[in-house]
C-alpha cells in the first residue's frame, strides 16, 4: 500500500508542488515590488471564482482548454508531442463557422452536429495528415511539423477573413466572417441563465463528456490499449503486432480532432463568427493543461479550470490590486518549468547529501546493493 500512496502522491503531488513553487516565487516578486501578495492573490481568486458571473467566465475559458488539452494528452500517451494544436483549433473553428453560416436550411441540432463534425474533421486532418505521415514514414519530428502546420493553419484562417474580398469575409470594415445561423448557437450551460451574462454554453458539457470519452477510449478499448503500448514501448508494440506507423498517424489525427472540436465549440458557443482573435493561443496553454494533468483526462478538467482561472482572475487582479495581469503568464512559465524539472528533487537531494558532513563515500548509491 505504501507504493499506492507514493504513486498517488507523485501524480497529484508533483503538479501541486510545481504550482506551489511558482505561486511562492510569484508572491516574492509581487512583494518585492511593494504589493501585499495575499491581497494580490486574493483578488486573483475572487476574480476567478468570486461570484457566479466570474465563475461562469472562468468555466467558459476552461472549455477550449480542456478539449484541446485532452487531445494533447492522447498524443502524449502515444509518446507524441502535438505542439501545434493552436492551428488545428483555428482550422476547426473556420470550418465550423463556414458550415454554421452556410447550410441555413438545416434544422438546429443536425446543423450543430454537422458544424462540430466538420471542425473535428478539419482539426484531425491538420494534425494527422502532414505531421502524422511525415513522422511515421519519413521520421520528421512532430514537434517541428505540428508547429509549422499550426502557423500555416492560422495564416490560412487569417487569409479567409483578412482582405476586403477574402473568401469568408463579411462585407464591412472589420475582418470578420458572417455570423453563424441563430439555430446553431449553443444553448447556455445551465437553464435559467444561472451564470448571468457569462458566455458559458453547453460546450462545457461537451468538454466534460469528452474527458469521459477520452478516459474510456484510452482505458477500455483496444484502440487505447495500442496507443498506450506505442507510447510506452515501440519495440514491444511491434512485437505485439501493433502497426506503429498507423497508430502514429491516427493518434496525431485524433489529437487534432479534439483541437478542432474545441474550435467549433468556441465558435458556436461563444464567438459566433470568425474574427481576428488569434492571440488567444489556447493551443499553447492547453499543452500546459495536459502537462500539469500528467495526461490524465480528469486531471485535464481541473488543470483546464486552473489556467482559465489564472486568466480571468488576472484581469480582476489588475483592476483591483494594480498588479499587471501578465503576472499569470509568469506563473504559467514557472509552473511548466518546475513540471519539466521534476528530476530537480532527486538532484537536490543528492546534492544535499554530498554536502552533509560525515559522508564522503561515492555518491553512486542509486543502483542495487551488492549481494
Amino acid at each position, binding site marked *: 500500500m505504501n507504493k499506492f500512496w507514493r504513486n498517488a502522491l507523485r501524480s497529484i503531488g508533483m503538479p501541486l508542488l510545481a504550482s506551489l513553487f511558482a505561486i511562492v516565487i510569484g508572491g516574492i516578486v509581487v512583494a518585492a515590488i511593494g504589493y501585499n501578495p495575499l491581497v494580490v492573490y486574493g483578488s486573483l481568486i475572487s476574480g476567478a471564482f468570486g461570484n457566479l458571473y466570474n465563475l461562469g467566465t472562468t468555466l467558459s475559458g476552461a472549455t477550449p482548454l480542456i478539449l484541446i488539452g485532452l487531445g494533447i494528452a492522447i498524443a502524449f500517451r502515444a509518446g507524441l508531442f502535438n505542439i501545434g494544436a493552436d492551428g488545428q483549433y483555428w482550422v476547426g473553428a473556420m470550418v465550423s463557422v463556414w458550415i454554421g453560416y452556410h447550410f441555413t436550411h438545416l434544422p438546429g441540432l443536425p446543423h450543430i452536429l454537422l458544424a462540430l463534425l466538420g471542425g473535428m474533421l478539419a482539426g484531425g486532418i491538420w494534425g494527422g495528415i502532414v505531421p502524422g505521415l511525415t513522422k511515421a514514414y519519413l521520421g520528421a519530428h512532430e514537434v517541428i511539423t505540428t508547429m509549422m502546420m499550426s502557423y500555416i493553419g492560422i495564416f490560412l484562417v487569417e487569409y479567409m477573413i483578412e482582405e476586403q474580398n477574402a473568401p469568408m469575409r463579411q462585407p464591412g470594415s472589420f475582418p470578420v466572417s458572417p455570423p453563424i445561423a441563430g439555430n446553431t448557437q449553443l444553448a447556455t450551460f445551465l437553464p435559467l441563465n444561472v451564470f448571468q451574462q457569462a458566455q458559458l454554453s453547453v460546450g462545457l458539457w461537451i468538454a466534460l463528456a469528452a474527458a469521459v470519452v477520452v478516459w474510456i477510449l484510452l482505458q477500455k478499448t483496444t484502440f487505447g*490499449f495500442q496507443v498506450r503500448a506505442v507510447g510506452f514501448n515501440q519495440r514491444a508494440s511491434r512485437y505485439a503486432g501493433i502497426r506503429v506507423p498507423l497508430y502514429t498517424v491516427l493518434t496525431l489525427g485524433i489529437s487534432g480532432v479534439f483541437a478542432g472540436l474545441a474550435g467549433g465549440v468556441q465558435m458556436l458557443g461563444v464567438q459566433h463568427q470568425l474574427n481576428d482573435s488569434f492571440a488567444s493561443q489556447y493551443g499553447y496553454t492547453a499543452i500546459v493543461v495536459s502537462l500539469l494533468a500528467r495526461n490524465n483526462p480528469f486531471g485535464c478538467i481541473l488543470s483546464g479550470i486552473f489556467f482559465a482561472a489564472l486568466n480571468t482572475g488576472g484581469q480582476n487582479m489588475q483592476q483591483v490590486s494594480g498588479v499587471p495581469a501578465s503576472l499569470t503568464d509568469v506563473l504559467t512559465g514557472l509552473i511548466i518549468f518546475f513540471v519539466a524539472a521534476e528530476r530537480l528533487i532527486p538532484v537536490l537531494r543528492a546534492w544535499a547529501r554530498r554536502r552533509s558532513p560525515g559522508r564522503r563515500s561515492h555518491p553512486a548509491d542509486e543502483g542495487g546493493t551488492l549481494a
Partner: protein
Amino acid sequence: MEAFLEVRDVTKAFPGVLANDRVNLSLQAGEVHAILGENGAGKSTLMKLIYGLYQPDAGEIRLEGKTMHFQSPRDAIRAGIGMVHQHFMLIPALTVADNVVLGEEPGRIRYDRKEAVRRVRALSEQYRLAVDPTAKIGSLSVGLQQRVEILKAFYRKAKVLILDEPTALLTPQETEELFEVVRHLKSQGIPVLFISHKLDEVRAIADRVTVMRAGRTVETVPVAGATAQELANLMVGRDVVLRIDKQPASPGRAVLDVRDLAVVGDDKQERVRGVSFSVHAGEIFGLAGIDGNGQFELVDAVAGLLRVARGSIHLDGEDISHLTPAQRIAQGMSYVPQDRQLDGLVLEFDLVENTILRDFRRRPFSRAGWLQRLPALRHTERLMERFDVRPRNPERRAGELSGGNQQKVILAREVSRNPKLLIVAQPTRGLDVGAIEGIHRELIRLRDAGTAVLLVSLELDEILSLSDRIGVIHHGRLVDIVSAQTATREQIGLLMTGTQAPGGSEEVFNT
C-alpha cells in the same frame, strides 16, 4: 623479462555475478596476445577494467612495472593504453582527421585543419593504416572506420593496443588487412591484446593465447603448440553437461520450414545469408552460435519483426514469409524474445495488460474493440498460479517484478495459447538456478505435448541439455545440424567458431 602490461589477481563483482574472479594476464612487449573465451566468459569486463571503465574490487593492474589506478578511460589513454571498442566511438558527421585529433587538436584558437590532416596522414603512413584523412566517417566502410579508431589510439601515443572483437563486423578481406596491420605493429615492437572468440583467427595472428571461462583465466599457452581442438576444449570446458531428464523425442510433421532465408539487419548488413532448416512437432531445435552471428535476426524474421530479404518461411505448410507479426500470432506462432524488458513486456503496463499484450485482439479479451478486463484478469490469475509468478498480484506493473518473474510472465503468455510453434530466445539469461530449472521443465513439457520448439541460446549448456537437434550458426550461415544425442561440447564449440568438423554430420546445408 618483465611484462609490459600485467593483470594480477583482479576480481570484479556485480550484483549477483562474479564477472572476473582472480584474473591473471601478462602481456609481453612486442607480442600479439589473444584472449579467447565464450560470450559471458568475462573478456569484456577484463577489458573495461584495463581501460578504466570499471575499477577492480581486488588485485592490481601494472603497466611497465607501475601499479595503475585508472578512474576513467581518460587516465588509461594518458597512460598509453589504446583501445578499439567493438562498437566504434566515432562521429559520423565529422571527417577522419577531425575524429582522430578531437580533444587534442593542433592550433591555438583556430583549428589548424591542414596540420591535423598532415599529422593523420603521417600517422597512417607510419602504421600502414591507409585512409583518407579528409573523408567523412559516415561514408567509410566498417574496416576503414576501424583503422580510424586505431589511428585515434596512436595519435594519443598509445604504447599498447587492445582490440575488442575486432573482426566481428569485418569482411574476410578486411580481416586479412587488419591482420597485416597487427603484424606491422608487432614488428614495431607494439604489444597488441586481441580479444576474440574465433579460434582460427587467434591461431592465425596471436603468439600466445589466454583462455577465459566463467570469469576466470584458465590457462595461457603459446599458440604454436596448441591444436584447435585443445583450445576449443579449454574454451568450453570439459565439465559434464547437465542433461535434463527427458524422454526421447517423437518428432511429427515439420511445423516450421525455413528455406534459403536471407535477412538484412537494422544496420543494413546482411545478417542471415541463406539458411534452411525445419522444426518438427514434438522436438526442440536448438540454434547454437556465438552472439552476433545472425541467430537473433533469424528468429526475428521468423516472427515477422524483420523483413525476409530472400527465401521463404512456411508454418504448417502455409507460406507466412510476408505476413504481419499479428497474422503470425493468429496462425499459432509464439515468440519469447531475447530482451524481455525491451521487447517482451511493456514495463509500465500491469500484468493483466502484459498477459494480453499479444492477444488483446481476440475473444475473450476484447469484443468489438472493447477490452474485457474481467476475463483477462481471470486468465492472468490462472497463469500466475500455474507459473508461480510472484508476487501474486496481477495489478502490479511488469517493471516492478524481478527478472525471473518477468520471464515467467512472458513464457506463460506465449505458452498459454497452445502454439504450434514456440520460439524462445535466451529464455534463461540472467536468471537464478531455480527459475532456470522451471523454465527448462516447461519447455520439455511443451515438446512432449507436441509443440515445435525453436530455441536460441548463447549458453551452450542450455542448448545441449534441452535440444533434440542442434543447428550451429556462424556468420549468418548454418554450418551444420547435428543430433543432440551424439553431439559433444567440443564438437559444437568448434562448429561455433566456424570450423567445419571433419565428416560425421547428418545433414549439411549450404555454404
